[in-house]
């Protein structure tokens, strides 16, 4: 057979396998176009309109974006989300790593403990929110009663504008089981040899932690950091159920205000503009995190 004929056959084979692959991934491809590409583009269009669903959308140009810049509630929701993200995400990563190190030791009942820290993750957020509302109850809640045992008069938690966000951050710590499991898996992958070599060189536990353990689990840190960030930007259900944005809008997070604009005030255009700003923020933060990760994430010799 000539070389050209062979090339032609190869080309036909490639086209054929491409079409077969396309057929297999078509559910995702259709879903991607239907539930992602089309909505994302149409939301860009809506963001330049005034639209309350009942009347047809009316083109208003940049008005929604300009109004947003002058909307104190928008800035407040952005500030609340930033506060929540900045404190909650690093705290979650740190606590998850610490607890994973604690649970990584050979102690009796380790499997039970591992189960115990993950169970809250499977609990529906509604149930979690209700349990914690009751825990945070000022007079009869578990938390203030425990604090009273050591002579501390606890705050009003969800009822106090200054404690409402820390309350939600505290509750979020109950839900880090997934990150703990990821860190546990990462810790188990650290080669024993490294520690033994370090011991021979006379390294202490703290040095081993800093020079071996932490670098070896940086991929897990990156993963939990990224998923944590994306989750924190979207915090909604807990605040919606527990405080409905209050008190004094101290827990009116970004997505909560977006939801209110869209589904309470029926300002679909305004909500779409908020959605696009969120999209851009998430994009920038993710890219920065990824870019920086090249400098601090260690992939054990692989690329």
């Amino acid at each position, binding site marked *: 057979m000539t070389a050209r004929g062979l090339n032609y056959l190869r080309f036909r084979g*490639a086209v054929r*396998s491409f079409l*077969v692959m*396309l*057929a*297999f*991934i078509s*559910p*995702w491809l259709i*879903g*991607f176009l239907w*539930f992602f590409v089309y909505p994302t583009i149409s*939301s860009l269009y*809506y963001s330049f309109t005034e639209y309350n*669903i009942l009347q047809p959308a009316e083109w208003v140009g940049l008005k929604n974006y300009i109004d947003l810049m002058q909307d104190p509630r928008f800035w407040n929701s952005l500030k609340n989300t930033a506060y929540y993200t900045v404190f909650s995400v690093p705290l979650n990563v740190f606590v998850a790593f610490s607890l994973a190190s604690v*649970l990584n*030791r050979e*102690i009796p009942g380790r499997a039970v*403990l591992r*189960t*115990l820290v993950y*169970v*809250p993750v*499977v*609990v*529906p*957020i*509604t*149930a979690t929110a*209700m*349990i914690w509302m*009751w*825990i945070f109850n000022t007079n*009869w809640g*578990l938390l*203030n009663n425990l604090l009273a045992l050591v002579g501390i008069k606890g705050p009003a938690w969800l009822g106090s504008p200054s404690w409402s966000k820390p309350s939600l951050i505290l509750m979020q710590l109950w839900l880090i089981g997934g990150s703990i*499991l*990821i860190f*546990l*898996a990462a810790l188990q992958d650290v080669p024993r040899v490294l520690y033994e070599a370090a011991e021979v060189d006379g390294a202490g536990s703290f040095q081993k932690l800093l020079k071996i353990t932490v670098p070896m689990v940086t*991929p*897990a840190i*990156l*993963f939990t950091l990224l998923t944590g960030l*994306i989750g924190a*930007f*979207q915090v*909604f*259900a807990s605040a*919606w*159920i527990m405080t409905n944005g209050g008190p004094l809008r101290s827990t009116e997070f970004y997505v909560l205000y*977006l*939801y209110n604009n*869209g589904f309470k005030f029926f300002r679909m255009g305004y909500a*779409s503009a908020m*959605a*696009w700003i*969120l*999209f851009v923020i*998430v994009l920038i933060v993710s890219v920065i995190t990824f870019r920086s990760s090249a400098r601090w994430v260690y992939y054990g010799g692989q690329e």
Partner: protein
Amino acid sequence: MARLELVGSPVRSQEAKLAGTLTLGRLLQRLGQLLGAMLAYLTGAAFFLPFYWMVSTALKSPSQTFLSPPVWIPSPFVFQNFPDAVNYIPFGMYTLNTLKIAIPSVMGTLLSCSLVGYGFARIRAPGRDFLFYICLSTMMVPWAVTMVPVFIMFKNLGWTGTYLPLIVPHFFGNAYYIFLFRQFFLTIPMELSDAATVDGCSQLGILTRVILPLSKPIIVTVALFEFNRAWSDYLAPLIFLQRREQFTLALGLTYFLDQQRPMWNLAMAATTVAVLPVVAIFLFAQRSFIEGVTLTGLKG
């Protein structure tokens, strides 16, 4: 006898002497271990406490519920709270509604994600990995970004107020589950597929006759994850469901909070019943859950 002999042996006595000089170091080490173990048990207790608080409150009479300091062990146990709570809201109907959404969602997810995962894992074709990265990157986009236009779209289709917006999208894949399926399929030797091809099997035939029978663990994992997600979902039902008769358990449960003064004992009883199925499923199948989670972390 044997022990005595050992003690008497020169090597042993030397070791014993060495151990004697190291007692302080050993003591510190022992202390550290003890401290670590205590920390671990304390952690476990802290994670367990909210559940204890939920169940103990669920068993209290109203007068025991509102007490400070609290009653740790209710006396008497008010088991009547459970039927009362379940009758306070249309609990059975909410459960049925939730299942009407969750079961088709699980089926759609398994169907679509196994197909797509197979395409991404086992068919060599140009452009495949590029498409896979696009698929992965959609995981990073918050759902809130598309929430409004998707609502408008379903509204225009006349689907709001039905279960369709909560079910149909799950027949079109989910990046995270596609990723899990793909990772699992990659671990199955390619030779099996090649042998089936020689026998005249089509790609679909290979998937259904060769790959899927070997993939029970990942099927179980994804089914459990998706069932848990559908059972727990709050935002989507909140947006798309309008009438109370359609509400899911996750939505309906908050009815207890709408009251001027919530009856926390009943609220906790209902919460306990709502949490029980998912926790039970998790405890029975925790290996599948944990494998799914750690599989995710591998490629962080």
